[in-house]
């Protein structure tokens, strides 16, 4: 899935809120085993460099959140009035 494509659809003012939500989903998830180590390392690198709210950081977080907590992640888009993006992600996940 092209996660970057979906991040580009998100209005920039919402990046910070979403980044925060995705971090929470990932850290509190019980689905640890679904996190690929390469992705985890990318997220940690961004966190270390304070770039989790950047396009690259948010892309990594979106991927992690969708792998570990797909339902919560899609709901977050809906809560933030981005149901259209949630729909597009859902379609992409099903194809």
């Amino acid at each position, binding site marked *: 899935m092209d996660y970057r494509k979906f991040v580009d659809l998100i209005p920039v003012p919402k990046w910070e809120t979403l980044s925060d939500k995705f971090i929470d989903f990932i850290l509190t998830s019980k689905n640890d085993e679904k996190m690929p180590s390469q992705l985890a390392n990318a*997220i*940690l*690198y961004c966190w270390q460099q304070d770039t989790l709210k950047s396009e690259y950081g948010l892309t990594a977080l979106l991927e992690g959140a969708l792998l570990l907590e797909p339902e919560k992640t899609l709901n977050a888009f809906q809560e933030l009035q981005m149901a259209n993006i949630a729909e597009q992600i859902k379609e992409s996940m099903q194809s």
Partner: protein
Amino acid sequence: MVKFGIEFVPREPYWRIMYYAIQAEKGGFSNLWITDHFNNRNVYVTLTTAAIYTNKITFGPGVTNPYMVNPVFTAQAIATLNELAPGRVALGMGAGDKTTLDTVGVEMDKPLLAVQESIDIIRKIVSGETVAYQGEVFKTAGAKFLFKPRGQIPVYVGAQGPKMLALAGKIGDGVLINACHPKDVEYAVSCVKEGVNAAGKKFSEIDVAAYTSFSVHEDIKKANKAAVPVVSFIVAGSPPQLLERHGIDVKKAEEIKEALKANDWGRAFNGVTPEMIAAFSVCGTPEMCIERIAQLLKSGISQFVVGSPIGANVREAINLISQKIIPTFQT
């Protein structure tokens, strides 16, 4: 000025612990301690990751023991870490946990001597010496690294009983006191001071840490709820004298122990009383935790370690500690 340390148990995947470690470093913590139990992920692999993802925090095993890990191996591991993160490594060494050692059939023989001799061997070999050591517990015949270690690493002794606390004061660069209540910490510090005096050192030369079970939340009920499981295990493992010192009914503690043995978590956790939480954890709202830490500081500790569970939501708890608690003690 008091330092703040944080403890993590590598039962969690490395990436979660590293997220929190980076957060702790950014939030003003000075020490990161990783527990060492064979049934969790490996402590040195976790610490190596910490060396890579952090820049200034001091880190180390908190604590390892000389029974499961031979002292020369511990020396090798910390000396190698000290190459990866020079000057940022500390070693926590204790006698270990009897229940865990029993599980793997390792006898906890002469714990005071084992800790003392292992630290002796580690310090010698880390300083580049060839070590021929004839101890009662450990013996080496010309052990030496084939690489040049980067110098000494501070050794903290993990201690709870009076003799180990005195030994810690005598030989340690630091002490990790396993206690949460001001009465217990005050007593522990007095034992440490005996050892310090016996060695002709100054108390201010060593870093004395209260290694606590900690839980913070703006909602006290949530803080308590998170603390209950950890407190139940502490109560179950505490000797009757310690329970009585805090006015805790030994019978109730026995019931919790039985429930835990039977994996009846609900019964065990329901048996935990507010008195038990107060005795065996630092728990509450940020304001309540600040008050308790201030009490502990009066006994002379120089480092306060927040240990498991830290809070109902660890990320939020670290933020609360960094934003509300640490700054209170830095002014």
